[in-house]
């Protein structure tokens, strides 16, 4: 797999999609090597921006060829000034983009049944993942959840690609009133799925991983950790992950993830350094010493 590329991409389109914006960038040098689960990092605010850090987004679709050459599409929720700036772009504007980044979803070698779970814009990478799975002969069952109907993403596309689709919203404004983990156990049993793919908020991923394990299914979870560099050099994006040797390490979500085996992540300890992690201090590091940074 070729490494990430930095490209000055032209904005092809910005379209509203419910509570989200779909941003299509012309980036042929990147589009060709994107696999489902990869993300891209976009610079925001222009040359005199006060915002130095890139913003990370899962790739929704990467079109290697097509009308306009080689495009990468992301789905963004306006959250703060960086995403607000991106949502205001117009066709012809330019955005500096780096990608593909991270490790994509691992696909099963056998044509097994799979469940895809997306929370909010976490559904973004699932459509192309579903296509990849279907191409390998896998059955694809999708569950999409969100707080409200307008925060669901990709329902129509999922309906088209999946063998089955369930939708939940916290307020019942679309689909079933509830959260994705309400429907997951039953679905796993019913479909005898062997792999669960999930992308969404950390709490959801933890639940999905737990349920998958309880059903003897393998899970692949795409996490979202605050990232300063996105390329593996800064060590800001770490979480505790158990290696094949049984040792817990603080690993980088940007290069060792964002997709992890659900049973390898120590979900309850995310945000902490477990005392049994490799190199953990005897006592937790005191804050306020200031210097050790």
């Amino acid at each position: 797999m070729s490494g990430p590329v930095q490209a000055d991409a032209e904005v092809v389109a910005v379209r509203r999609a419910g509570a989200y914006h779909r941003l299509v960038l012309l980036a042929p040098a990147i589009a060709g090597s994107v696999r489902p689960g990869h993300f891209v990092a976009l610079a925001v605010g222009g040359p005199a921006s006060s915002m130095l850090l890139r913003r990370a987004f899962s790739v929704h679709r990467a079109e290697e060829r097509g009308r306009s050459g080689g495009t990468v599409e992301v789905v963004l929720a306006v959250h703060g000034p960086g995403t607000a700036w991106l949502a205001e772009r117009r066709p012809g504007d330019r955005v500096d983009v780096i990608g593909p980044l991270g490790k994509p979803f691992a696909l099963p070698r056998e044509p097994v049944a799979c469940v895809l779970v997306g929370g909010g814009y976490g559904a973004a990478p699932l459509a192309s993942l579903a296509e990849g799975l279907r191409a390998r002969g896998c059955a694809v069952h999708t569950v999409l959840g969100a707080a409200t109907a307008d925060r669901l993403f990709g329902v129509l596309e999922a309906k088209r690609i999946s063998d089955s689709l369930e939708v939940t919203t916290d307020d019942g404004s679309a689909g079933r009133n509830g959260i994705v983990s309400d429907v997951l156990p039953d679905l796993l049993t019913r479909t005898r799925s062997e792999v669960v793919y999930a992308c969404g908020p950390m709490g959801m991923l933890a639940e999905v991983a737990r349920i998958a394990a309880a059903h003897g299914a393998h899970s692949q979870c795409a996490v979202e950790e605050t990232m300063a560099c996105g390329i593996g050099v800064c060590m800001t994006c770490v979480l505790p992950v158990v290696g094949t040797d049984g040792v817990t390490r603080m690993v980088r979500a940007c290069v060792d993830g964002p997709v992890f085996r659900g049973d390898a992540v120590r979900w309850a300890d995310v945000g902490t350094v477990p005392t049994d992690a490799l190199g953990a201090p005897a006592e937790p590091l005191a804050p306020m010493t200031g210097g050790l940074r």
Partner: protein
Amino acid sequence: MTAARTATPAGLVPADVDLTTTLAGVGLVSPILTASGCAAAGREIDQFVDVRTLGAVVTKSIMLEPRSGRATPRMAETPSGMLNSIGLQGPGIEHFLKHDVSWLRRRGARVVVSIAGGSVEEYARLAQRLRGAEGIAAIEVNISCPNVEDRGQVFACNRSAAAAVVHAVRRATAPGIPVLAKLSPDVTDLVDIADGCVGAGADGLAMINTLLGMVIDTERMRPVLAGITGGLSGPAIRPVAVRCIWQVHRAMPEVPILGMGGVRTGADVLEMVLAGASAVSIGTVLFNDPSAPTRIAAELRTALAARGVARLADLVGYAHRDPDDRAVVVEEDPT
């Protein structure tokens, strides 16, 4: 209304400009290095900029043992900057030498190893361990660490503690390898600390490390960083960095300086060189633009050619010279 430019000697083009420099006796192909902690051990950044074209890769500060670092969140974006509180996560010196330094050597990059410890003894042991290692161009001593033997007081904030570390590292290091002391700007009298380090044997000074800062999440009404305070870096701090370089170069013009703090463009490198730096590290801006070193080198060449300056090295400390005294800088040997 554009400011006056120095006359351009006929025919000086960017490609003719000589960017090579010497830092504490070490010749460097480029004045542009990567800052400690901002390019790991070079492997990832090599995807964006050929690390052989860098003056050197300054590696993330390494400690004796593996270290897991602090809890997350470890960073917060701030206006034209960021805070970080990594807690020196790293694999420990043995793994580092075996996997990281050896990769950099094989790749053909120059390596400046940054070391960090919690006691003078730890720094000394790190330096001893490096003595055997091959392919190390210089040692940068990150003294912005709390001294576990002195109530966590940061070495860099105390002249004698800083000097003790530098002295121990210098003694344990092979004579040919320069030792650079990396200074913190969070002190009342930077020149005094610098003087202490040079007196203790530092062959050069690296400055500046981050400023101590903090951000509070106004939604959760709690500090953003798990470590509460963190180090402020990026263009926001550049004026502080330039001032520090200027003050120290003014006080001790013979001491080589590796400048850093918010460098984003070729003009920013030039600014630090004019203030007194012999070479410059790029840190936080790599997160914004991982290929920045290549862009910056090109900008620097163009800037020098436009000013008719054939050799960057001629401009080290140039802004200190009396305007009337300044030798006109012209190309002499544009090879």
